[in-house]
């Protein structure tokens, strides 16, 4: 059992939905970012999505893009992100960590080298936005062979014809992107999301969490009620960006987690 499988098994036993929180590694600087990350499990976060900064985040809105820029300006690198995970694992061996980002920093380091370092650091899964199933030999298949989950994004444009291809070679869970658009844009609507989640669960046999466009505890509860979990990113990152104290950010995260767990 992987940490991700354990987490969904535990939540299932408790009758709870998963709350997944996204932060950008190194935002606004490495020290504060690690402090926030270390506080996430106690705030009720079941799975941590850790953003890997990239100069050209084509699927992200301005909030995440600026977070990446802040992190890069503060000197964050892929090596720095891996070091952050190692530091987190010194005190937390159970919370799953999924790296989310774009392919080029990994390609630049070299896939084999990256996978060796990522597994050693205690990373559980990868979400790489610009690697669709058509490019599985690049990273998905080697990552699976190395024991990492490769978590796929499914979107409203993923029709029945395409869905089997999207869920092939995926593991851990499936991330349903609730809107056509970029992170932090339009609001997700539970009545649209429910049927899509059911379709993806049936095709994949995996838990389905939903993200993009969830900004409040109410929305987290609403979406989690029709899925296996809810992901919040931009709303948290926005508070980091405006310089809120880590304690205040974690209090907001707790309100979101409570919302999702209420569902």
């Amino acid at each position, binding site marked *: 059992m992987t940490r991700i499988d354990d987490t969904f098994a535990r939540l299932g036993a408790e009758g709870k939905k998963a709350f997944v929180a996204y932060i950008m590694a190194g935002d606004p600087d490495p020290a504060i970012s690690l402090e926030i990350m270390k506080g996430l499990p106690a705030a009720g976060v079941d799975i941590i999505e850790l953003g890997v900064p990239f100069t050209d985040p084509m699927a992200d809105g301005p909030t995440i893009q600026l977070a990446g820029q802040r992190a890069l300006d503060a000197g964050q690198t892929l090596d720095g992100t891996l070091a952050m995970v190692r530091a987190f694992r010194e005190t937390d061996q159970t919370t799953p960590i999924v790296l989310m980002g774009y392919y080029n920093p990994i390609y630049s380091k070299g896939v084999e080298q990256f996978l060796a370092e990522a597994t050693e650091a205690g990373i559980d899964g990868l979400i790489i936005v610009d690697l669709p199933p058509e490019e599985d030999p690049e990273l998905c298949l080697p990552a699976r062979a190395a024991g990492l989950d490769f978590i796929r994004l499914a979107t409203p*444009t993923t029709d029945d014809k395409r869905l089997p291809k999207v869920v092939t070679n995926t593991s851990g869970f499936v991330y349903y992107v609730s809107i056509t658009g970029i992170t932090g844009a339009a609001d997700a609507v539970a009545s649209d999301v429910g049927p899509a989640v059911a379709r993806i669960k049936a095709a994949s046999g995996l838990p389905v969490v939903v993200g993009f466009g969830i900004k409040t505890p109410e929305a987290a509860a609403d979406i989690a009620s029709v899925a296996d979990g809810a992901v919040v990113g931009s709303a948290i990152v926005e508070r980091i960006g405006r310089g809120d104290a880590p304690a205040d950010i974690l209090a907001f995260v707790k309100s979101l987690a409570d919302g999702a767990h209420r569902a």
Partner: protein
Amino acid sequence: MPDDLLNSFMTGPDENGRFGDFGGRFVSETLMPLILDLEAEYERAKTDQSFWDDMEDLWTHYVGRPSPMYFAPRLTERLGGAKIYLKRDELNHTGAHKINNVLGQILLARRMGKTRIIAETGAGQHGVATATVCARFGLKCVVYMGAHDVERQAPNVFRMRLLGAEVVPVTSGRGTLKDAMNDALRDWVTNVRDTFYCIGTVAGPHPYPAMVRDFQSIIGREAKAQLLELEGRLPDTIVACIGGGSNAMGLFYPFLDDKEVRIIGVEAGGKGVNEKMEHCASLTGGRPGVLHGNRTYLLQDEDGQILEGFSISAGLDYPGIGPEHSWLHDIGRAEYVAITDTEALAAFQLCCETEGIIPALEPSHALAHVAKIAPELPGDHILCMNMCGRGDKDIFTVAKALGVEMEAGG
């Protein structure tokens, strides 16, 4: 050159959109169904004679093709070596080669029932061409342009607005072409149902690099036929400038299997290709990476973060290059060199003085390399350069670089 390994250099890309290891489809899942639809429609259009009849008609009566193949006598005399021909694609409607490709993509968009066209632009030439063809067909047009480029290419911004396009200044990053492309992609993932993304160069996810090349290949096909008629043989050397590389692919592609023809691509060397990276020479000073949907040579740091290029020419200011060029570079079928801003400016002036042609800053880079190699070549050496754009849009930039004070409209 691996002559024995390949029967033809013209068979790419493969079914996965690869030219060797380059190219591919590195896009988010939201876009995958769209680019697969586009690929299927393009495959149908390619073999549909009525599609090419429409293209031919527009090329002839709207764009003004074929563009002339012009022997440049005073330039040839001044340089004192090779016989220099200019392929006059700057005489096209809208002043550059860009419209060759835009026509093809807009006809495809119409076939697909798309009603809203988006585009990115650097120098503004692709934006103007897209706005023009959208006006011609009554389609809504939105052009993403880096805020920095909006400033340095003001005349083209006004042109696009006159043509009814909405020009969106992009402030993310350093506000240049790369950032405009990011924002165009963001628009596309948001407006997937009615929107067609008209990419201006031979980059992006498959099928764009192949499709744009095919539309631009009219340049090389004409050049080949014209030189055969004028000289009774193929040129010895062909030269074109490269940002993303669409005018160059258009000229090069029909000559790829004519192995006696030397092919040279000229990148923007900015302030010089060195460790300071103040240039846009992806092949000369970059390494392979993945950006904007394809694997290709990129300007990037050790961490795989993309660097902002630098060039006096907004049209060459892009940190990547079309994947087919990366492949041609690696297998050695084409040579790639870099020309600095200073060298390009000198060539710009040389062309004005000797031929009465004001070139765009982009082909001025190609011309600067021609000026370097022509003197060493014999008088019977035929050298053909693609004059891919006219310089009207650049006169303010050039004036500033030459220290001349000039007021717009003065």
